């Protein structure tokens, strides 16, 4: 397995080195690339190097797999014409100036009809230009939406809203758990958003939050953080983070925590089990299913052959799986579907269609939401799975109804967002 990785990487290295040399040789004087008019270009303006690379690269690999499959099968038919799909990517290394620069390159030089981005400050830096030039842009973070972001859509991940479904499920199944602590990293894009959502969800569920511990990205030792919050004797330990789940779980295990654990993600839970014990991890609640989960074959799921997709990815990239590996493809597929419906791949046409039509959400349902929190209904919200570890394996317990919760409790959510200093309308 590992040999394969190296082989793969070596091949990739050679390929990239070759491309690099070519780029160096002809830099500055390459004419604008033109593609045959039977090709539609989709842009990915993502981090491929630096510490945010894990939230960019896996998605690129998968989008390339999907594009190749589509092209091999003869392309997609849009407006009565068959098109090949090409993915053009730019590495902005999570740097705002490079993000703006790369965005322009993708749109103006590669002729990308839609640009997928991770979100956060990199999206903020491209927004004014993207809005003015009417470039369809997607983000994984609905909190990037602003009242003026007419061309920005969050069509896949409902971060951080989906967290409420886990809390609802927890409160129903473990009514005796009454005191919760929340631990998260103190960044405004991920950690604080999640923390505010969890606080709202706990409040609605009648669970008291006895401590919120915010830490920076420079933490190497989680022992003091865990000791500190466990001193409050919580029944529920909530991780509003995706960055440090494993070391936190490990500390919980060593410090003898025996309450309920709820988290946004539990990536590579097999490794967590290896570091702690299956018994300890069993019962942990989170939000991201394995893609071979049988529940993903249910009615209403809008993702073709999740199991096969999962297997294909892991074969080529055994160490690279993360939620973005299916989220970018989901966005790509959603875009293709909309382009087909509207009969055009042009940015403005698809954006207009998106705004005015209901959508199929990955896990079913699909309403546009967001104006009460961010000023515009540009986040696609639907059912979201509640996943629990059972016998060392992630299993979807149910699909929580996010739309219903939001319909009833948005003002609680807005209040908690404000409390943590986050942007609201």
């Amino acid at each position, binding site marked *: 397995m590992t040999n394969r990785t190296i082989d793969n990487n070596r091949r990739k290295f050679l390929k990239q080195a070759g491309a690099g040399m070519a780029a*160096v040789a002809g830099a500055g004087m390459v004419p604008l690339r033109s593609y045959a008019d039977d090709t539609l270009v989709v842009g990915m303006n993502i981090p491929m190097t630096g510490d945010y690379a894990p939230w960019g690269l896996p998605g690129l690999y998968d989008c390339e797999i999907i594009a190749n499959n589509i092209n091999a099968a003869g392309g997609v038919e849009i407006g009565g014409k068959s098109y090949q799909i090409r993915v053009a990517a730019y590495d902005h290394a999570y740097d705002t100036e490079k993000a703006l620069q790369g965005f322009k390159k993708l749109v103006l030089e590669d002729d990308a009809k839609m640009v997928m981005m991770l979100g956060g400050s990199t999206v*903020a830096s491209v927004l*004014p230009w993207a809005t003015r030039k009417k470039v369809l842009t997607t983000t994984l973070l609905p909190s990037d939406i602003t009242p003026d972001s007419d061309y920005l859509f969050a069509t896949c991940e409902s971060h951080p809203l989906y967290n409420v479904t886990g809390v609802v499920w927890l409160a129903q199944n473990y009514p005796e758990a009454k005191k919760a602590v929340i631990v998260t990293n103190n960044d405004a894009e991920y950690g604080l958003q999640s923390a505010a959502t969890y606080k709202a969800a706990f409040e609605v569920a009648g669970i008291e939050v006895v401590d919120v511990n915010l830490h920076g990205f420079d933490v190497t030792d989680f022992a003091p953080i865990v000791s500190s919050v466990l001193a409050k004797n919580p029944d529920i330990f909530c991780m509003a983070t995706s960055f440090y789940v494993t070391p936190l779980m490990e500390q919980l295990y060593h410090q003898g925590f025996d309450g309920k654990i709820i988290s946004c993600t539990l990536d590579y839970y097999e490794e967590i089990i290896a570091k702690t014990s299956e018994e300890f991890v069993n019962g942990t609640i989170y939000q991201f299913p394995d893609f071979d989960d049988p529940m993903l074959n249910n009615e209403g799921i809008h993702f073709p052959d999740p199991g096969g997709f999962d297997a294909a990815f892991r074969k080529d990239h055994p160490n690279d799986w993360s939620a973005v590996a299916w989220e970018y493809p989901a966005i790509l597929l959603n875009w293709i579907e909309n382009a087909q419906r509207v009969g055009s791949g042009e940015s403005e046409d698809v954006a207009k269609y998106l705004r005015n039509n209901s959508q199929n959400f990955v896990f079913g349902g699909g309403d546009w939401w967001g104006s009460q929190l961010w000023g515009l209904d540009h986040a696609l919200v639907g059912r979201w799975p509640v996943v629990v570890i059972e016998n060392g394996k992630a299993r979807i317990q149910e699909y929580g109804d996010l739309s219903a919760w939001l319909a009833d409790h948005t003002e609680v959510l807005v209040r908690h967002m404000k409390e943590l200093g986050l942007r609201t309308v």
Partner: protein
Amino acid sequence: MLAKHRTLMTIVLILAGLLILPHYLKYHQQDFLIFLVVNVLVVASYRLVTLTGEWSLIHAVMMGIGAYTSGMLTKFLDFSFWISLPLAGVVAGLTAALLSFPLFRTTQFYFLIGSFAAGEAIRLSWIHFIRPFGGTSGISALPSPELLGIDFLEPIPYFYLTLAIVTACLVILYRIEKSRIGLTLHAVHWQAPLAESVGINTWNYRTLAFTTGSMFVGIAGALKVHYIGTVTPNQYGIGFMVFILIWLIVGGYKTFYGAILGVIILSILDEMFRELEVIRPAVYGAVLILFILYLPDGLESLPQKIASRIKGASPKGSHS
């Protein structure tokens, strides 16, 4: 006199070239050019700080202070860009002046590390105090400059704006260095005790260089964020600081133009390597090592080296 005229001619030619250059570039390269010109000011102002021999690691944060100042003034208090731009410089300069009280009680390696710690503490405060700094996501949707209805969201107008301001700043920086004050700064660097013995207050001059350099990088910060429209704490971390250091050292710090050469050549290389995706940093790192091993006196020594090779004569001692 002749040499002076030739230099002047060269500068005029370069400026003229820069004025028409963006029209021949691809769109994203126009953006790249704007950031590059701003970074020229960043590294030229850093050079002023290092003239006294004290290398700081807070320059990137000073740039951030300028960026945050201008961003907050325009966004929250509706200041005009034309007022917030100089104020960005003033606030960064004032911060430097305040910090120089504790920091210049140390020198050399200690100053380097002390300035890093002070900068990192400031930067972490932007993250920690989400009000008013916006935490890690910073402040976005900053307004563009307004002037005579020119659209500064477009790269070419903004490039001309940047070019004008940066050129003006460079002229000032150059004149400072060549003035009596510049000579005194060199003196403080090379023989601080001797300088003190003839009445030069070395502390004052270190502070002067630190404050003035920070002021100019504050302006650079404001210039950059009003084009990007977003200011975040992570733009100004040790990562960017390391690049400033690299530009100056690889470019060479004996002449005024060495650092500028460094930022231009290295940034262009970095941009060319972008196609390499994952391995880009490694190739960049390897290039750094090669530059240092084979051009230990910096890129600025290259013209001399080439000249001496052509003439077959030994290179003359570098002037300062």
